[in-house]
């Protein structure tokens, strides 16, 4: 297998007028990897993906996608990658077959080849409805899977998915992610944006973006370890008054992060000694347990924390 990375990005930036939407982003994506972009709306995830699919040309910096750059205005990249956009999936008024034929026509696929691919992809997504089904009549999750099939009809090595599961029921989301893993199992590279933490947990590596910048990059475990070098406690006040204690805790030395999670609080500390000291005065009714930080904690610390 070729050892060159699927995508290699260096100092990639794009400006719209005075606004820098993506600011000197650098990373590389390995072949066969699920690479996730995590960030709030407007963080630059979609814009980055739109550049890497050849839809937008960067203002500066470079990117090699499957070994190709932007020298030809992105046409070469468009030929070799698959892209599923956030908003649109398939034409509702057309049938499944017509939608796939259209996708094949746009990519000038040989009809026999397109038919063969269609069969393979139907097996991959376990689609068993007739080709003549109207897309409008299909459930959202199936539609999303078909859209992915349409984006992969030309058998791209690299597939870009922009929030593929937005607006899809939780059960269908899980199904879709199982599908993503099957695709990378075939040796394909999947680059996906999401704002669901549970989805980000399933990525091989995550690029965390905030206001156009890449602020952290690594596997979910690496991100957690670097954001929270010390221990994290989950405090449950069990109905006892918490305001006074929280006010004091906020000023405790060694506190890295304190955030409410429903009825509970997550408190992260630089070291165990700092935690023990800070939690010594906990009200009798309250309890504290040592927990492993979640990606949501990471997100709160790195993205929202930086905005406070």
């Amino acid at each position, binding site marked *: 297998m070729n050892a060159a990375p699927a995508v290699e990005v260096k100092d990639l930036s794009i400006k719209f007028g005075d606004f820098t939407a993506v600011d000197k982003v650098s990373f590389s994506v390995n072949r066969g990897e699920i690479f996730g972009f995590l960030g709030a709306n407007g963080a630059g995830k979609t814009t980055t993906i739109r550049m890497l699919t050849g839809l937008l040309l960067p203002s500066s910096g470079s990117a090699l996608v499957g070994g190709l750059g932007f020298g030809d205005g992105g046409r070469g990249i468009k030929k070799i990658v698959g892209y599923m956009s956030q908003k649109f999936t398939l034409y509702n*008024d057309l049938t499944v077959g017509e939608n796939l034929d259209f996708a094949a026509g746009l990519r000038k696929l040989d009809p026999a080849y397109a038919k063969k691919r269609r069969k393979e992809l139907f097996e991959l997504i376990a689609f068993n409805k007739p080709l003549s089904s109207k897309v409008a009549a299909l459930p959202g999750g199936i539609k999303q899977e078909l859209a992915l099939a349409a984006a992969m009809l030309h058998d791209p090595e690299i597939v870009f998915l922009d929030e593929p599961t937005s607006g899809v029921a939780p059960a269908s989301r899980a199904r879709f992610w199982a599908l993503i893993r099957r695709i990378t199992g075939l040796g394909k590279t999947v680059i996906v944006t999401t704002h669901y933490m549970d989805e980000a947990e399933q990525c091989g590596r995550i690029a965390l973006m905030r206001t156009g910048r890449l602020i952290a990059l690594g596997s979910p475990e690496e991100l957690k370890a670097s954001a929270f070098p010390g221990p994290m406690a989950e405090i449950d006040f069990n109905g006892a008054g918490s305001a006074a204690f929280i006010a004091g805790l906020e000023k405790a030395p060694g506190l890295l992060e304190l955030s409410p999670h429903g009825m509970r609080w997550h408190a992260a500390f630089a070291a165990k000694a700092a935690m023990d000291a800070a939690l010594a005065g906990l009200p009798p009714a309250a309890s504290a347990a040592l927990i492993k930080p979640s990606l949501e904690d990471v997100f709160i610390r790195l993205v929202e924390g930086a905005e406070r």
Partner: protein
Amino acid sequence: MNGFNFHRAYSIARKEVMHILRDPFTLTLALGLPVMLVTFFGYAIDYEVRNIRLAVSDRDNGPAARRLKEVFSSSGYFRLVEPGPAGPVEMLDSGRAAAAVFIEPDFSKKIKGGGQAQAQFVLDGSDNSKAAAITGYLPGIQRAAQAKLAAQTIKEPFSAETRFLYNPELNSRWFIVPGLAAIIIGLLAILLTALNVAREWENGSMELLLSTPVRPLEIITGKLAPYGALVLAGVFFVYLVSRLVFGVPFEGSHLLYLAACLLFVTAALSQGLLISVITRQQQVAMQFSMITGLLPSMLLSGFIFPVESMPAFFQYLTMLLPPRWFMAAARGITLKGADLAELAVPFLALGLLSAGMLALAIKKFKTDLE
């Protein structure tokens, strides 16, 4: 060679055809509008004013007055009504009559004596188009009456005879129905294109199209061709109805007519594309299309109101509007049998405007994608 790929353009065109076939709104509009326009302008609107209610105040009651009244009623334009106690002017005031004629008491006597008899004709000028039409009938009525009343034919120093070329009966349908093609192209081509492309922006599928190696020119060709064909089908329908139902003559070259249609269709489709690129929303695109498509075709093309009688500013404005030139070409070809040399100006203008519009639409479409 520029890399234009017919196959990709064809794929888009085929998809558009499927959209059209499944969209009741597009189909209804595309098929319904020509039928509606033909029915409306072919049957309901008649520029000849008939059955004008004429109140007669006959203070003569002699044989000459009776003959004069006969001339009015047998013309086919007038229906005589008795003024009743209120009098003819009251009838005009209340709208129960559109015109009145006053015959003086000694009318018959004066004519018999070879003198100058008087009859006064009064018109309701509040409806000026009706009044203008009625005034147009008067010289004929007068001539007919003189011939009937005078003992011997009056020797006129010269007689002016009018003969109408191209439309000898001044049949308004002949004039209006060939112009309907302009309305159909001007409205349908612009509206359908604008809506369709705006929908593609609105639901985000343009993004999907652009993420493939498809070129802007292929998208444009694939999208516009089916709508062009649909609109030309509408024009063909109007052509059939005007020939078969209304008997409108077609004096000129069909090929030339087709060329004029194609030029105007190109301009209209480009305009629709331009609107969709600018608005990107179906709702706004619809309003834009109505204003920039229907209004010029209806009001500023000479379809109903002659360009020559517009204020100078509007006359110059119409020069920038493709429908005006198409209208001139279409009427010239159908009614006069004009050839390309005679229609050089409309064709040149139409060609320039549609090339300009197309170039502008392509440029705007391309730059907006980047």
